[in-house]
Structure formats: C-alpha cells, structure tokens
C-alpha cells in the first residue's frame, strides 16, 4: 500500500539531466491500524483502577497478662450481633434480660445508633476535618490528632459478633460503620453462648 509516488516525467530531449524528485510521503494507515490494535489490547488486558482496601488489625493470639488487659467499662460497651438474612442486633453494656434491639445496616439504622453513642468524638472529628480543609494541615499532623481524638477517654468499645449465618458483606458493612462513625476501638469476637441465647428467640 505504501505509495512512494515518483515523478516519472518524460525527460526533455537534450535537456539537463535532473535528479528525480521523489516525494517523501509515506502512507501511515497501517501504522495507525497497528497503534489502535495495541491500544485495544492494552485496554482489554489491563486494569486501571487499583483495588480499594480496608485495613484491619486483629488482636494477637498470645495471652495478655492481667494488668495489660484493657477492661472496657460497661457503659462504653456496645455489642453488635450480625445474624442471618442481613439482620443485626445490638445492646449496650452487659447483656441483660431486656435483651437486644434490632436494627439494620442503613444510614438511619446502625449508623445512627453508633453516632449517638459516639456523639462527642464524631463531632470533634468533623471539626478537625473542617479545620484541615481550611488550614491545609499536613497529613501527618492530621492523622496524629485524629487518632488522639478517637482514642479519647469516653470512646465506645464495640464488639462485633457474627453468627455462622452471617455473610462477609455483613462483616464488612459493620466494619465500615466503625469507620464512618469514627470508632477506633472495636474487635471481632466469637459469639458466646450467652449472646446466641439472646437472639435465639428472634431468629430461627
């Protein structure tokens, strides 16, 4: 296809011999084809978006000595029980006869409960965020302040218990709510018999 057209004009008789003027025009069409073929290949075979991730730190398996163990005050404790069919139950403090309250994973459900419990800290975090936007605080200072606020004295401690019927989505949703309502002290714990007793009547 490449046309390198040459001017094969007739030589004049007896005229001076002129060097042939060859046009340097090359047909680029195949090269464009090749270019787009490669683009298509790269578009299909690669991914542009990096995966999102949630960082999680689990407690160590090693036995913690008595004095190092942090005991949560009953008034700060919140327990979430993730049950079958996306149902979620919660109670504050010690498990009581009064039992558990049911809620859901929506913004007006679990989030509201947690935000009410964590009202002070959530307000402070919000303030800090606004301050950061205004003053262009550097990230490190921001993070330091954030963790300071989050580990405040009255910060609630959330225990997340999942029943065997819960799905991974439920767990991630619950962890997500922790991030949203700025709760830094939470743990995924096994469901004990006392708590499974509490929800027994509710789910079957």
């Amino acid at each position, binding site marked *: 296809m490449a046309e390198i057209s040459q001017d094969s004009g007739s030589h004049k008789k007896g005229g001076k011999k002129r060097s042939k003027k060859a046009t340097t*025009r090359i*047909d*680029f*069409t195949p*090269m*464009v084809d090749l*270019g*787009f073929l*490669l*683009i298509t290949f*790269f*578009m299909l*075979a*690669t*991914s*542009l978006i*990096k*995966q*999102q*991730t*949630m*960082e*999680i*730190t*689990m*407690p*160590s*398996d*090693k036995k913690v000595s008595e004095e190092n163990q942090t005991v949560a005050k009953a008034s700060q404790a919140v327990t979430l029980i*993730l049950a079958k069919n996306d149902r979620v139950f919660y109670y504050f403090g010690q498990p009581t006869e009064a039992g558990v309250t049911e809620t*859901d994973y*929506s*913004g*007006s*459900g679990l989030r509201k409960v947690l935000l009410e419990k964590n009202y002070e800290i959530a307000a402070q975090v919000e303030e800090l965020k606004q301050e950061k936007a205004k003053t262009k605080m550097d990230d490190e200072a921001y993070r330091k302040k954030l963790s300071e606020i989050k580990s405040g004295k009255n910060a609630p401690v959330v225990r997340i218990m*999942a*029943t*065997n*019927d*819960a*799905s*991974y*989505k*439920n*767990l*991630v*949703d619950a*962890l*997500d709510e922790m*991030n*949203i309502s700025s709760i830094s002290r939470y743990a*995924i714990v*096994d469901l004990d018999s006392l708590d499974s007793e509490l929800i027994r009547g509710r789910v079957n």
Partner: protein
Amino acid sequence: MPKVKVARKSTWVDMTAMTDVAFLLLTFFMLTSNFVKKEPVLVYTPSSISEIKIPETNIMTVLLDKNGKIFFGIDGQTTRRDLITRMGEKFSVSFTEEEIRQFTLIDLAGNPMGAMKTYLGMGMEQRENPDNNLGVPADSTDNQLRAWVKTARELNKDARIAIKADEKTPYPTIKKVMKTLQQIDENRYNLITRLEGPSDEAPKK
C-alpha cells in the same frame, strides 16, 4: 457547451497526526495500567467507604469464593518458584521442573497439596473448571493455608496480606481464615473492597 470538468481531488489523507494520537494513547495505557490478575473464580467484593489503595507488588492474596473455597497467591515469579519448592518439601510432594514452571504462571492456586501435582499437569482450560479447584484446606486438622502463608512470609518479609472475599461468603470461612492468620501472628491485613457507589446506598426508611 463545454463539459464541466470536475476537479479530481486526491483522496490522500495525512495519517501522521492520527498515528501521533494513537501512539500517545498507547503510551498512556502502557504506563498507567497493570495487567488484570486472573482469578479462578468470580468474586464480587462488598463495598466500603475506605479509600486506601492496595499496592500492586509485595502482596499475598487469600481469595475466598462464595462457596467457601480458599485460594492463595503471591506475586513475583521467583517467589512463586521458591514457594512451590518449599511447599513440596514440607508436604513431601516432588514437582518436576515443568510443574514448577507452570506454578509460577498461576496467579491464584487453590488445591490441596495432594491434588496439586495433577492440577499443575492440566491444561489452561481444564484448570478453569471449578471441579478442578478444590480449595486450600484450612481446617484445624489439616491447615494447609497456614503452611502457605507461613512459607510465603519466610520468602517475602514485607509482603502484605490481602483477603478478597465474595459478599456472600459465609462467616465461618472468614473466621477460619482469620483464626489461621492469628495463629501465625499475622495480625495486620487488608480486606479488599469495592468503592461504594451511589446505587449501593438504598435509602430505606
């Protein structure tokens, strides 16, 4: 009346500019993207508000499908080579050079060590068959996942652990994996999630 002569215009279009554009785009895609990891099962991760991005390299992935099958993979072909050799030694399975080479090409493998040899001997298409992916056992009696993670940790000290699981993965499987990681003192890891879209938050009242 003289004939009206239609001027013959050449249909030649200069393609140089188009080539420039094509190659510019090509360069962009080559530099910004990375290859899709081939996953043996389709996994639909749950969404979260977290915006932390996962690094591309130095990562070991534990993939859990919705039936609770476990897959394990690590990046880097040399690491994979060492990994399968050491795992072979631990479980006294001897792999041929070809089988080891095959393993280095697999992103995520999920088979008990007993079935690994046959799995590596299969063709690409057979490997995709779910019946040929039995999952890594992680039960208390036969916890091969622990061996995988432990061996991978010996080979790559800086690698992060990422757990990628399907929305519908039952909690007991997750618990099993978390317990396994806890046993070998791997207490920090990442859960891979999808960015929360506006459609995900159904307004319920």
